[in-house]
């Protein structure tokens, strides 16, 4: 369902990914790990099309990303939920409106928007914080809002870039439980992290990157 085919990427003279090939099956949960600068975030950016590959192709579902027209990108992204380390919440919108944004972009009716957004917040145990503004929440709560926003439109794929990077270890484990729940419901989940604790004993596939090379795979 997701396939990287001989993908390379460089910025000026700096090669960040070298001839990477791997695949992730539908409803699988996989981790991408490696030290800083290994190319983890670049792989995710290529998947949500913030970047395009210099060589090779990426196939996600029916989309061939190397040749995808710019006008089709928004519609492709609607099938993906993205979770960022720095949250990327809109400060002047309430929690419910941040979550609802994903639905409003898709043109969902206002009546449905409220119901679906509250359901997503319930899944991350933040229903009671719906009318708060993001700045009034803790880091862990903000990340759960981001997850609710990522899953509210029921995407087929959730990408998370260092989702626990700014959180303490207990909160990080709570967030991982949420991701496992999403995966159990049938959504493909790919998490990029340098924190080995997150995938230890999960039994999930871990792709290991170093210096832009895929150096191997292991089971967490």
């Amino acid at each position, binding site marked *: 369902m997701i396939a990287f085919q001989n993908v390379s990427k460089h910025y000026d003279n700096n090669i960040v990914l070298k001839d990477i090939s791997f695949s992730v099956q539908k409803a699988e949960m996989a981790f991408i790990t490696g030290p800083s600068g290994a190319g983890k975030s670049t792989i995710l950016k290529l998947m949500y099309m913030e970047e395009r590959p210099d060589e090779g192709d990426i196939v996600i579902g029916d989309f061939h990303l190397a040749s995808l027209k*710019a006008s089709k990108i*928004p519609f492709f992204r609607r099938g993906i939920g993205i979770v960022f380390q720095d949250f990327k919440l809109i400060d002047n919108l309430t929690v419910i409106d941040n979550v609802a944004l994903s639905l*409003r972009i*898709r043109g969902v009716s206002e009546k449905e928007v409220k119901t679906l957004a509250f359901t997503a917040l319930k899944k991350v145990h933040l229903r009671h914080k719906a009318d708060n503004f993001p700045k009034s929440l803790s880091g862990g709560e903000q990340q759960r809002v981001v997850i609710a926003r990522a899953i509210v439109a029921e995407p087929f794929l959730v990408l998370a870039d260092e989702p626990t990077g700014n959180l303490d270890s207990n909160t990080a484990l709570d967030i991982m439980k949420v991701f496992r729940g999403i995966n159990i419901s049938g959504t493909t989940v790919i998490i990029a992290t340098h924190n080995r604790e997150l995938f230890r004993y999960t039994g999930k596939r871990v792709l290991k990157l170093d210096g832009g090379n895929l150096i191997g795979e292991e089971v967490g």
Partner: protein
Amino acid sequence: MALEYSFRSAFQSLWREKWINMLSMFTVFSGLLIISLISFFLYNFEVIANRLPERFSIIVYLNEKLSGEEINNVIDTLKKRQDVLSLKYISKDEALKEIKKVLRDSSHILEGLSENPLSSSVEIKLKKDYVTSSAVRQISGEIRMMSGVEDVQSGERIAEAIHLFKRSLQNISIIILAIISSGVIFVSYSTVKILFFRRKEEIDILKLLGATKGFIRAPFIIEGSVIGLIGGGLAAAGILGFYFAVTYRLSVYIPLFKMLILPQEILILLPLTGIMLGIIGSAIAIGRLKP
């Protein structure tokens, strides 16, 4: 719905950034008020300039020895000309009466005269299109050649001045309107550009969530139109206030001001122009969005 979100987002931003938006509205208001004041005066000048050809006339002095039948022949020939709008025969006696009327208290000047020294004449009004110096010169020359005509007074220079005045007014108005319109567009552009940069992060988030360019642009376009609409509406109120102040108050001292006309269309045109300029400014400021 997406449209509902766009309107809500635009009005939230209008309120959140109220000071910069009020400043922009004020600038659009002042720009459009200046444009409308200039247009108002130009329009009235144009109305006056259009009436000037109606007042322009050529005087054809007839030979004194012409019989009544010959005078009628000259008048008939003149009437048949395609450039003549209307004409009026003024006999020697009527001319003298007219002079006496003009001289009023000084009419004693004429007392020493034993006979009427004035010639009978024909006053010709030309059609609007022929009130140019070259046309008047040619028409005068042709009439002067007619038998029975003693002399022709035409005032080519006045005709030329009217023509030049009208043309200059049109050119100046186009230049001024273009300069001020560009200014208003630039202000709308700058405001939206500032708002755009302030919301850059939000825009990037929207893109990553799958928002189309239209979805991202819509609130900014709505915001620009509202700024333009309010600025234009205020300018319409301003010009209306100015018009009443001038016609009702100042006309007491300067009666000429009573003649000024405010075309009602301007009151609808100003808010519409404001909206249009706001949209153009916003569209330029947002520019091409990268996916």
